[in-house]
């Protein structure tokens, strides 16, 4: 299963943990860029830049 992907910001290699799921946020270890996992499974792995923290986030 594909578990590494290139950071769209800095080109570093991001490792996607095996137990992560679609919708989870992962962070680039080099530049700190945050990505949401949009596809995962078999040979598919796709990320998109995560939403920025909004003023109405959280509890």
């Amino acid at each position: 299963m594909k578990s590494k992907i290139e950071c769209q910001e800095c080109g570093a290699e991001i490792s996607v943990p095996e137990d992560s799921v679609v919708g989870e946020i992962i962070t680039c270890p080099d530049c700190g860029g945050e990505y949401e996992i949009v596809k995962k499974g078999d040979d598919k792995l796709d990320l998109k830049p995560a939403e920025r923290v909004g003023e109405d986030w959280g509890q």
Partner: protein
Amino acid sequence: MVEVSIVCDKVRFEEKALYEKTLSKGIKANIVDAKTITIGTNSKMKDFLLLGDVILQRSVSYYRGLYLTACLEFVGFKVINKFKVGETCGNKLVTSIKLAENKIPTPKTQFAFSAESGLESMKKTGFPVVLKPIVGSWGRGIYPLRDLETASMIVEMREEDDSALSRIYYIQEMVDRPPRDIRCIIIGDQAITAIYRYSSQSEWRTNVARGGKVELAPITKEMEDLALKAAKTVGGGILGVDMMEDKSHGLVVHEVNNTVEFRGAASVSKADIPSEMIDYAVKVARK
């Protein structure tokens, strides 16, 4: 067979724990991205097969979760928590009014609707006071104001803000309390667990998102009664009731959280919080 969906805009510890717990109970579960749902006035339940029989609304964005819940309820889904509950809990002013109406001990709070009347209210209350935004979480925009000079500067900053809600001033007495508050998690009519939340070093707020540390708190009879009453007051469901230990007046409820985060509580509690939440969701689905 009941099917549970977890609607969220970001999968965090909580959403994963709920999903895995649902599956471990042999119940079908789906995590559904709130950002991908569109609903119209002509929508029908059958258009949303993945949403199952009961929805746990877990969006981290308050307004997204709130208005999506309104739409889902319109279509006919059972959503935890209900729109009305989210509407109350997400607004500190409305929550304070409801708590006071129902004689639930809560910190003395003044509401003012202009910079001038806000400053007047602070002077009348007497410094220090706490200024809070009426909508907002993770302790953002909450300021302890210890004198008029600082208060005037903060009010000036609020006036420069474009947000209409910044013109509404929520001014609370500074409660004399230990450096911690209490979060009691209510599920249905039960207090499941309670934690103390301690502020981190050089931080006054106790939010876990601000680095606050947690410790298991014993659920006293007073705490349980108060938390259950507060939960009922806002409409019930799965809620996090935040309380402070006022040195002069005992426990006071200052907030009720609608999409309760429980990572901190789960790290110290003996209760299986996601399991209790799923059992409650199944009960709601079967009603």
